[in-house]
């Protein structure tokens, strides 16, 4: 099959284009929040508490009289910060441990894999709740908790790929030429396993954003007055029937963000590794 151009790939892959568009939009909105937000997200107009959408406040005001649109825009920053931090930390730990386990085998492999067995046997969100319950609710603790459970997937994926790649001739050749283990792993093995890792990271970003929103919804995540979509929904839940906009709009934001990243991840599977789809 002839190699497709980048343009053809995007045109033929709806999920990839739609996902990328939604994701880029979300990142831009988050970055430009201070410029775009019509109001200060923490200024309270108490006289206008709970009032619905108006021209000045397109998405209405919350229980303390704060502008919902501005808080959603600033909330995107929290979501992305958690998402990117978790993916960065979890993938770094996971790739390192997975590569070590796969390349060296033996005891290192056994220890890392048994540890991952235990973490996988435990429902992820429950473990995150347990960590945050103990460490105390805060943005950083959410990031720590989600990273602690998040590395396992990367480690397993990279280990499996390394086991495959390790046996291919070019690795043997590099070793025969005297390359050190570190050099072989970094320059010869890892570049060959990077595509599935990118897909996993994209889907992991969606997972982390959803998990942060869930924890904040349960009151275990970002603490007020920092705007977080999950926490906004949690407060909105108490005013259902009185001020539905408080729960409805943050929910739309979460859904679009998660959907965009899931689309992007799905699209990347097709674009980066067509074989993967067939094996599914």
């Amino acid at each position, binding site marked *: 099959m002839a190699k497709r151009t980048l343009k053809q790939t995007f045109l033929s892959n709806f999920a990839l284009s739609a996902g990328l568009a939604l994701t880029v939009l979300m990142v831009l909105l988050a970055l430009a929040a201070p410029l775009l937000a019509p109001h200060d997200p923490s200024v309270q107009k108490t006289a206008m508490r709970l009032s619905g959408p108006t021209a000045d406040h397109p998405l209405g005001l919350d229980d303390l009289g704060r502008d919902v649109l501005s808080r959603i825009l600033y909330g995107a920053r929290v979501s992305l910060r958690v998402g990117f931090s978790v993916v960065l930390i979890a993938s770094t730990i996971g790739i390192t441990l997975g590569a070590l386990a796969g390349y060296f085998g033996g005891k290192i492999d056994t220890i890392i894999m*048994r540890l991952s*067995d235990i973490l996988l*046997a435990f*429902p992820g969100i*429950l473990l995150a709740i347990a960590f945050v*319950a103990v460490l105390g609710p805060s943005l950083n603790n959410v990031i720590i908790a989600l990273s602690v459970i998040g590395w396992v997937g990367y480690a397993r994926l990279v280990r499996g790929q390394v086991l495959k790649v390790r046996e291919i001739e070019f690795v043997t050749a590099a070793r025969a030429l005297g390359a050190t283990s570190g050099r072989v792993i970094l320059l010869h093995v890892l570049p060959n396993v990077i595509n599935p890792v990118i897909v996993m990271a994209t889907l992991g970003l969606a997972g982390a954003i959803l998990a942060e929103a869930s924890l904040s919804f349960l009151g275990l995540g970002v603490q007020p007055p920092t705007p977080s979509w999950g926490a906004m929904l949690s407060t909105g*839940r108490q005013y259902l029937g009185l001020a539905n906009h408080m729960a409805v709009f*943050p929910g739309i934001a979460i859904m679009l963000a998660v959907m965009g990243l899931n689309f992007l991840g799905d699209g990347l599977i097709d674009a980066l590794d067509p074989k993967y789809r067939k094996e599914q």
Partner: protein
Amino acid sequence: MTQYIIRRLLQMIPITFGIVTLIFALIHLIPGDPAIQIAGENARPEDVAQVRQQLGLDKPLWEQYVSYLGGLARGDLGTSFRTREAVSKEIWLRYPATIQLAFGGMVVALLVAFPLGILSAIYRSTWIDNVARFFALIGVSMPSFWFGPLLIIAFAIHFQWFPVSGREEGLRSLVLPSLTMGLALAAILTRMIRVSLAEELNQLYFTTALAKGVSRGRAIFVHAMKNAMIPVVTILGLQFGSLLTGAIITEQIFSWPGLGRLLIQSISTRDYPQVQGSILVIALTYIMINLLTDILYGVIDPRIKYD
């Protein structure tokens, strides 16, 4: 078969042990002196000392671990700080509500996913298929803590068909929480059934059955469905486990008096023995369900070897 089950049970031991150890370790992760953290920053020294003694934090770590394991073996999960009663008492009181909710979610998922998935596989690439796929997409992207409030706005506040929260009105109380829990699972199952059944419909044995004069309905529901069910059952089992954790959020939305709500309440009141106990029971239930799924998988698929 018996051997396989015994082996799987034996494999469970180190994992369960690891989880128990992890949960034990959690309380020692509390930054600073856990006794002060639990009793409160401004607590009197004698209160702190009491907490320390109650939790056994004044003993060496290994001794605490051994007595924790000993307690577990006797079914003793400790004493709640808040109620001063056995942790297990409150858990068993709440457990049925969570299991009921999980089953409710499962029933909703099956009622939606089977017709939708089967129609979607039979009428592939038609509008029916597109509707089903769109539903699956929305279903997996919609967080339950948003879908739940939307259901409340529509069916509890606007139409007033169902109560907003609680568990007092029997089945009527169960409807909205079950829908909330079931949506994501319904979406995943619909996709799974569609892919799995569509693949079977392409197999030669299916064509052979039709050629031999078996009616199309019989060929689909008796011949193909049996094989298509194998991956579906696995997903169902694995997802039942995640329904349990999903219950933590759904119970919070609907003030459902289950284990998840108990967990979150205990966290906010810093009732650590209750937190520990609730997490342990949820985690062990999750593992047991996954084990049962594995075994069931073996029962329905005779191709699976047990050695």
